[in-house]
C-alpha cells in the first residue's frame, strides 16, 4: 500500500516513541523571529542548555518592525527591546540572523523559500501559525508555541502526535480573475474553520498542479485558518525549478540527486487518505470575507447571509454582522473601504504584486482610501522596484513600504484606526486583528484589494481586467 508524503516525512524524522506515546520528531529546519522566542532563549539560559543544532536555525525580524522609518532605536521602546533581544540571542547562541538592514530580511515565511532554506522532504517548525506556508514545497511544516520553540532550540525535536491526511483536489481550471487566495478561502468556507483539526491538508488536482510556487504558498499558508496545522503540496518539477540556484539550495553537483529524492517523497499514486474532498475550480469566483473569521466569506457577487441561513452558526452570524456593521441580504460589492493593504505572508510575493499592479496601472486610488503595499521581503521589494512595479503603485497613490508583517496583525505602527474597513490581502479578519479593537477586515486576493483601492469600495476585479 502506498504512503502519503506526510507519512514518509514523518517516519524519516521520527527519533523514537516517547513514554507518553507521543512521537519525538526531529526538526530539520527551525525558523525564528522576534516575537515568540525571547522567553525560549531565557529558558535555555536558566537551564544551561545550548542550541543543539545551530546550523539548522535561521532568524529574521518581521512582526514588530516599522515598515516606514526604521531608524534605531525605534520610537516604540518595547519593539526596540524585542529586536535587541533577538540580536543578542542569535549572537550569544551562534545563530544566523537576517537582521534589519540585511538584504535577506523579510517575513519569515517569505524569506525561507526565497533563500532556498525551505526544501521538499524537510520537517520545519517556527513559532508562528502560518508556518504551514512551507508545505508548498512538500515539507511538513508546523506552527508552534514558545515552549516548543524552547524544545526545538534545546533538542531540535518536538513531542508531537501524528496527523490524519485529507486530500483536497481542486479540479478543472480557474476562471479569469480567480486566484489561489480565492481557492483557499473557498475551501475554508466549505470545510469550516474547525474542519481541519487533526488533519494535514494535501492540496492536489489540476489547478494546484498548474500553480506557481507563490500560489501554492498562498494556499498552504491559510491551512491553519481551516483548522489544519499542516498543509502541503507534493513536490514536482515546478518545486525543483524554484529551489534550483537559490543561496541555500543543494550545490549544482548534488542537485539532481537531491531533486530525485525530493520527488520520491511525494505521496504514492495508491496512497490511502483519511478523507478526500473535491473542489471544482471552474465554479469558483473572487471571494470576500464578510465576517470575523476566515470561513465567513462569499463570492464578490453574493449577498451577506442571514442568521437563519447559517444553521448552527446563527449566533456567530448575528455577532459578526453587528461587529461588521452589515445587514443580512446586503450585497458585499459596494461596501465602502477606508484602507487597502497589500502584504502579509499570504500575499506579498512578487507575483502577487505583479497581479495587483496590473489592475492599478493607469488608475488612481480613490480619494478617501489610504492604500499601502508592503513587500514580503527586502528582495521582493528590490525586484518590484527593478521591474517598475513600485513606481506603478506609487503613481496610483499607494504608499510603498519596507518589508515586514505590517498591517496584518497590529504589532507595529501600521494599524487601523477606529472602525475603519480594510480590504486586505492578509489571512485573518478576527475582531481587532489589524490593531484597532473595532477595526474591520475584508480578506480577498491582492488583485481584489487593488480593485477596491481604486473603486473605493468592494468591487469585482474582473470588471477592471
Amino acid at each position, binding site marked *: 500500500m502506498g504512503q502519503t508524503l506526510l507519512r514518509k516525512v514523518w517516519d524519516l524524522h521520527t527519533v523514537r516513541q516517547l513514554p507518553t506515546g507521543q512521537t519525538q520528531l526531529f526538526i530539520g529546519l527551525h525558523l525564528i523571529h522576534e516575537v515568540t522566542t525571547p522567553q525560549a532563549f531565557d529558558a535555555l539560559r536558566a537551564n544551561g542548555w545550548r542550541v543543539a543544532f545551530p546550523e539548522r536555525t535561521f532568524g529574521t525580524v518581521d512582526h514588530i518592525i516599522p515598515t516606514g522609518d526604521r531608524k534605531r532605536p525605534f520610537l516604540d521602546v518595547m519593539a526596540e527591546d524585542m529586536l535587541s533581544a533577538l540580536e543578542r540571542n542569535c549572537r550569544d547562541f551562534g545563530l544566523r540572523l537576517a537582521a534589519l538592514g540585511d538584504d535577506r530580511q523579510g517575513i519569515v515565511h517569505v524569506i525561507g523559500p526565497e533563500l532556498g532554506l525551505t526544501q521538499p522532504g524537510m520537517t520545519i517548525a517556527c513559532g*508562528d501559525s502560518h508556518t504551514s506556508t512551507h508545505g508548498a514545497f512538500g515539507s511538513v511544516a508546523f506552527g508552534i508555541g514558545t515552549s516548543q520553540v524552547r524544545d526545538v532550540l534545546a533538542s531540535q525535536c518536538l513531542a508531537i502526535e501524528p496527523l490524519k491526511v485529507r486530500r483536497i483536489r481542486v479540479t478543472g481550471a480557474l476562471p479569469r480573475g480567480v486566484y489561489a487566495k480565492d481557492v483557499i478561502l473557498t475551501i475554508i468556507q466549505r470545510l469550516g474553520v474547525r474542519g481541519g483539526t487533526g488533519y494535514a491538508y494535501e492540496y492536489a488536482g489540476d489547478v494546484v498542479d498548474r500553480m506557481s510556487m507563490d500560489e501554492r504558498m498562498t494556499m498552504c499558508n491559510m491551512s491553519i485558518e481551516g483548522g489544519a496545522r499542516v498543509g502541503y503540496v507534493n513536490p514536482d518539477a515546478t518545486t525543483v525549478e524554484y529551489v534550483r540556484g537559490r543561496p541555500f539550495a543543494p550545490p549544482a553537483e548534488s542537485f539532481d540527486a537531491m531533486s530525485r529524492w525530493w520527488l520520491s517523497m511525494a505521496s504514492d499514486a495508491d496512497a490511502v487518505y483519511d478523507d478526500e474532498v473535491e473542489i471544482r475550480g471552474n465554479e469558483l469566483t473572487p471571494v470576500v470575507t464578510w465576517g470575523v473569521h476566515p470561513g465567513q466569506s462569499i463570492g464578490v457577487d453574493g449577498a451577506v447571509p442571514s442568521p437563519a441561513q447559517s444553521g448552527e452558526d446563527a449566533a456567530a452570524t448575528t455577532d459578526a454582522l453587528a461587529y461588521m456593521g452589515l445587514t443580512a441580504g446586503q450585497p458585499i460589492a459596494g461596501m465602502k473601504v477606508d484602507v487597502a493593504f497589500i502584504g502579509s505572508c499570504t500575499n506579498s510575493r512578487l507575483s502577487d504584486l505583479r497581479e495587483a499592479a496590473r489592475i492599478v496601472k493607469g488608475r488612481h486610488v480613490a480619494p478617501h482610501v489610504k492604500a499601502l503595499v508592503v513587500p514580503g521581503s527586502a528582495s521582493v521589494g528590490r525586484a518590484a522596484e527593478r521591474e517598475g512595479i513600485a513606481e506603478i503603485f506609487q503613481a496610483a497613490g499607494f504608499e510603498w513600504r519596507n518589508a515586514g508583517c505590517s498591517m496584518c496583525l497590529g504589532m507595529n505602527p501600521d494599524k487601523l484606526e477606529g472602525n475603519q474597513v480594510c480590504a486586505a490581502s492578509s489571512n485573518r479578519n478576527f475582531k481587532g486583528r489589524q490593531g484597532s479593537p473595532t477595526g474591520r477586515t475584508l480578506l480577498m486576493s491582492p488583485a481584489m484589494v487593488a480593485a477596491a483601492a481604486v473603486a473605493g469600495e468592494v468591487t469585482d476585479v474582473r470588471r477592471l481586467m
Partner: protein
Amino acid sequence: MIRRVVRVEGRPLPLAGNDIDTDRIIPARFLKSVSFDGLEQHVFADERKAGGYRGTNRPHPFDDPRYHGASVMIVDQNFGCGSSREHAPQALQRWGIQALVGESFAEIFFGNSVMIGLPCVTASPADLQAIGARVAADPKAHMIVDLEAGTCTIGDFTCKVDLPAKSREALLTGAWDTTGLLLDKFDEVRATAARLPYSVAG
C-alpha cells in the same frame, strides 16, 4: 522538579461562543514583551473594554464578580483558533485558570496548553449544557476536573470528559514539561540527524 497535573478544583468561569480566537484572548499589542509576566492583566482586553458583552448589559465574564477567583473555564467549539501565540494560554493560566472544559479546542492552542500544564478537556454538548445550567443556578459552584478518572463534577452532576491519551499521560506523569525528555536519549537524536539526506548548510 516534576509537576503532575491530576486534578483541578475550583469555581467555574463560563465563556460562550464558538471559534474564539487567540487575538481576542490576548490582542497582539500585548505580545510586545520579552517575558510572559503581567499578561493576565490583558486577558480579553479589547472585548472587556468594549462593554455590552454579547449584546447585553452584563459584564464580561472576566469582570463579573461572580467569577472572580475562578479556576475552570467552560467554553464552546474550537476555542483558541488562530495564531500560535503561547501568550494566550499563558495569560489565562496566569489569571488563574487551571483547566478548560469545552466542546473542542484548536490544535495549536491545545498543544501550547499541554506544554504549560494546562489541561483542555472535551465534553459532549449535552453535558456542557448541563454544566452550564448548574453554573447559571449557582455561579460559585464547586467544580472538579479529574484527569485520572476522566470526569468533571459540578454540584451533584458528574460527566465524562475526554483528553487524548498521550496528552493525558503527559499531564498525569509530569512529562508535559518535555525538554528533559527530548534530551534524554540524545544519541538517538544525533543518529536521526545523521541519516537525513539533507543539511541546511548554504
